[in-house]
Structure formats: structure tokens, C-alpha cells
């Protein structure tokens, strides 16, 4: 899409928002249709594919025995990575991770990690020698806005879907598992965009182009926040952040039901 057409589309988004509406008819705090698919890869310990409207994200989890960090010899660990595949958008390129994909993966990581939903001590195998590390790898398949929430929901879903491998005689027992990974909470990331003076949820690609700033918050079922992240060139007032938090408390409940 040419730059001119982009600008016209952005104008149209802004004008519609000023009229209190969105181009696709949603309310400001309304999400697009969320659908979840599992069993993307038998080779993965767990997978999930999340579609939010036309945004499409696949997450796979591999759980491998690693040497624990010297300062936490009895703890397992979590690694989250994201690839903005050039499949997903004409604006994505092959190559090393972009700052955008690094930011996304780190926000998803914090939302999960800081919710304390994983008891890393349970992932120990042998003190100082082996502990399980879960590699959560996020792949953008189609980018129509709000990759953050789609990626976060796919990540927690894939973790919930994951089988815990067995370890015997110094190695992994292929094809055998000891049940599912245990998660004590299901943090949900809810992102809003500031477009004009409105705070809207689950922005499309066209809406993101028109946004001045973005704010993401991860919410647990017991109504705690486990991560904040402001992004974008603009700013938020304190009351806009409060609106975003309230919206997230509400939306996270609905979204969690779909996992």
C-alpha cells in the first residue's frame, strides 16, 4: 500500500474516532473476534495459534534441560523470543530481531514471569546441574495490529498446553512426559492505543498507524497487574492510564474465558 493511501486511511481513522466510532464498528473498548487453535506442532511441547481478527500469531514452547544460573542453582527458567516473520507483513524484513520484536517479547516475558504463575523451583532437575528451561517462541503470521495481545495470549495458552518432559539417566526420555506444565495464574495482556483523544482497545494495523501512543498492561485473575509498558511517540495523562487499567481489568476477564 502506497504512502499516500496510508495517509488517507490514517485521516479516516482519526475522523471516525472523533465521531466516537471505529472503522469496523467496534466500541472503543471492544476486541475483535478471538480464536485459538492448538496442536500446531507435534515436535513442540506445547503450541497455540491465536487469531484476533486478521492478526495471526503462532507460539511454540520447547522445554529443555539446561545448566541453571550459578546464583539460582535450584531454579528453572523461561526465555521468550519473537520473530516478526516477513510472511506477516510487507513491512517486516528477514534478519536479526528488530527493536520492536525485542520489546514485544520482553513485555510478554514480564507479564508472565512477574505474575509469579510459574514456580521455577519445581523445574529443578539436579541442583546446579540441570533445570528445565521453557523456550517460548513467538511467530507473527499476519500483522493486522495488536501483535502484543495476540502474542501474549498465544504464549500463555501454549504454556498451558505444554507437556513436561521426563529426564532419566542424564537425558530426556523421548516421547514420555509427566503431565502438563503447572501455571498458578493466567496473566492476560491488554493493550490500548491513544488515537486522537480516545483510548481504544485492540487496534487494527490502520488504527496503530493513527495512534500517538500505546499502553500495555498484563492482568491476573486476582486483579493484579504484572506488567506495564508504554510505547509510541506520544504521551498519556494519569487519567488515561487509569482508563486503560480499568478497561484491562474488564477485558482480561472476557479474554481469559476463551483460553
Amino acid at each position, binding site marked *: 500500500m502506497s504512502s499516500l493511501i496510508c495517509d488517507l486511511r490514517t485521516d479516516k481513522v482519526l475522523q471516525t474516532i472523533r465521531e466516537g466510532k471505529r472503522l469496523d464498528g467496534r466500541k472503543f473498548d471492544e476486541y475483535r473476534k478471538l480464536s485459538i487453535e492448538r496442536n*500446531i506442532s*507435534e515436535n*513442540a511441547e506445547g503450541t497455540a495459534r491465536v487469531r484476533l481478527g486478521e492478526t495471526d500469531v503462532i507460539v511454540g514452547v520447547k522445554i529443555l534441560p539446561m545448566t541453571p544460573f550459578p546464583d539460582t542453582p535450584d531454579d528453572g527458567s523461561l526465555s521468550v523470543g519473537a520473530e516478526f516473520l*516477513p510472511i506477516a507483513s510487507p513491512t517486516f524484513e528477514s534478519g536479526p530481531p528488530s527493536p520492536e520484536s525485542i520489546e514485544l517479547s520482553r513485555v510478554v516475558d514480564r507479564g508472565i514471569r512477574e505474575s509469579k504463575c510459574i514456580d521455577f523451583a519445581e523445574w529443578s532437575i539436579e541442583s546446579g546441574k540441570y533445570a528445565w528451561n521453557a523456550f517460548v517462541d513467538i511467530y507473527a503470521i499476519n500483522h493486522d495490529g495488536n501483535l502484543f495481545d495476540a502474542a501474549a495470549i498465544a504464549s500463555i495458552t501454549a504454556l498451558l498446553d505444554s507437556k513436561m518432559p521426563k529426564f532419566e539417566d542424564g537425558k530426556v526420555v523421548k516421547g514420555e512426559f509427566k503431565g502438563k506444565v503447572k501455571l498458578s495464574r493466567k496473566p492476560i495482556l491488554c493493550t490500548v492505543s491513544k488515537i486522537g483523544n480516545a483510548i481504544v482497545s485492540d487496534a487494527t*494495523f490502520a488504527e496503530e498507524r493513527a495512534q500517538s501512543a500505546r499502553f500495555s498492561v498484563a492482568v491476573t485473575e486476582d486483579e493484579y497487574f504484572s506488567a506495564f509498558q508504554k510505547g509510541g511517540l506520544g504521551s498519556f495523562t494519569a487519567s488515561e492510564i487509569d482508563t486503560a487499567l480499568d478497561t484491562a481489568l474488564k477485558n482480561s476477564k472476557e479474554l481469559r474465558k476463551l483460553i
Partner: protein
Amino acid sequence: MATKKKEEKESKKESKSKENLEYVNKQGKRLDGRTVDETRPIKIKVGVVPNADGSAYLEWGQNKVIAAVYGPRECLPKHTANPYKAMVRYTYRMATFSVPDRKNPRPGRRDVEISKVSSEAFERAIFTEKFPNTAIDIYVEVLDSNAGTRIAALTTAAVAVADAGIPMRDMIAGVAVGKAGGNIIVDLNKYEEDAPDAVDIPIAILPNSEEIVLLQMDGLLSKKEWVEARTKAFAAIKKVHELQKQALLEKYKNFESTPSNDGSDKQ
């Protein structure tokens, strides 16, 4: 070095002593019930990535592949453009979770080689001279794997190129043929690829002219075995090609029900 060798081994794990095992039984059936000429089940869906100019998703046994095509579009950086034709840039990658061990997210030497020979295959298929100074980017991501991914990828990509409306001499279709336990068989699975005498021959052709556009082989193969393998391969590829055509027809049949593919709201 470890990295390099790991790659080589992606599909060669657990090649324990299987000398006693029978890869084809007296009834002519393989361990998964297939005949020697039979491929694993193949499903193809066209138009799965709304943003792309063309796309396809394929399941070939356990293999799962998604392909998207962007182009013809401006060739950047500009000094790489060719004033006489489009550059075809094919990128094969495997998701980290698509293999039994975790794949390193950075592209390895195997990825580079497969991307190179696949690019060359598409250079032959596409009428590149119609689009001077442009690039046609074909991206393929393997989501799950069990032997034969480069052919599964190429087969998916060919459908995506057709979906993008890019004119081709002919569609590319392929199969891997080879040997296990002394038998020439079509579409080896991982278990068969790990046979002590395994031979693996990925081959892709333009189905109508039978021009060979991709051909690789490893393992010990005689001339006679090659002729048998090639014959079986060509027959199997024609079936694969039928499935490609059906999938494309299917899309246009279901036109109304897949709004994301009608192009009206592409960005």
C-alpha cells in the same frame, strides 16, 4: 562446529541398528501402511495470509508449512535489482519448535543451501523477464517436521506464487524418493530416512514438461536404482500436482466465504 553438525543431523537422529527391520513387508506395505509408491496424506489451503500477495498452508504427513509471497515489488537495496528480470528470493526457515530439539533461531548453513536451490527452481518456473527491476519474495516457514520439509516447502510455495497471480511456465511440484532396507520408496518418513542404507532424493519438476528444477541426493545409489527412483518420483509428483491444482480451484470456488482473500481490504 557443534551448530553446524547439529543441523546436518536434524533428520538423522537415532539411527540405531535397524538392520534387522523390514521396511516393506510381504504384502508390499510399509510400517505406516503405505505402499512403496504412496505419499503421506497431503492437505493444501490457499490464501491463508491476508497481508500477502499470495499464500498457502500445507500439511504433508506431520510436516506443516506456511508460505507467503510478496511481489513483484521494488527490489531493495536498489543495486541488487536486475534491469532485465525480477529477482526471485526464496527464504526457507524452520520454527524453533518444529524439530525434536530446539532449532537455533538464526538461519544455519542448511537453511541457506535449501533457500539457494529453491530460489533457482523458481527462477526457472516464473516468467521473471516480465518484471524487470523487481523482487519476488517467497517466504516459507516450517511449523512441524518429519522428513521431506524442503519439498513440502517448495510445493507450498508454488501454490502461493500461483495465488499471487504471478505468471509461471508451469507450477513446481516435488517429492522426495529414496531407499530404505533395499526398497525404492516414495516420500520417506523420518523412520525410513534413518535406515542404515537410506538414500534421500528430493526432486522437483515442472510437471507438464518434466523439466527437473531441483535435484539433490545423499546416500549410496546405483544407476539402476536411480532410474527406478526417478520413475516413481515423476508418477508421485503428478499426484501432488493434482492436489495443488485442486487447492487453487477450491479457493476460487469458496471465494465468497473467505473475505480476507478478496483483496478489497488489503493494506
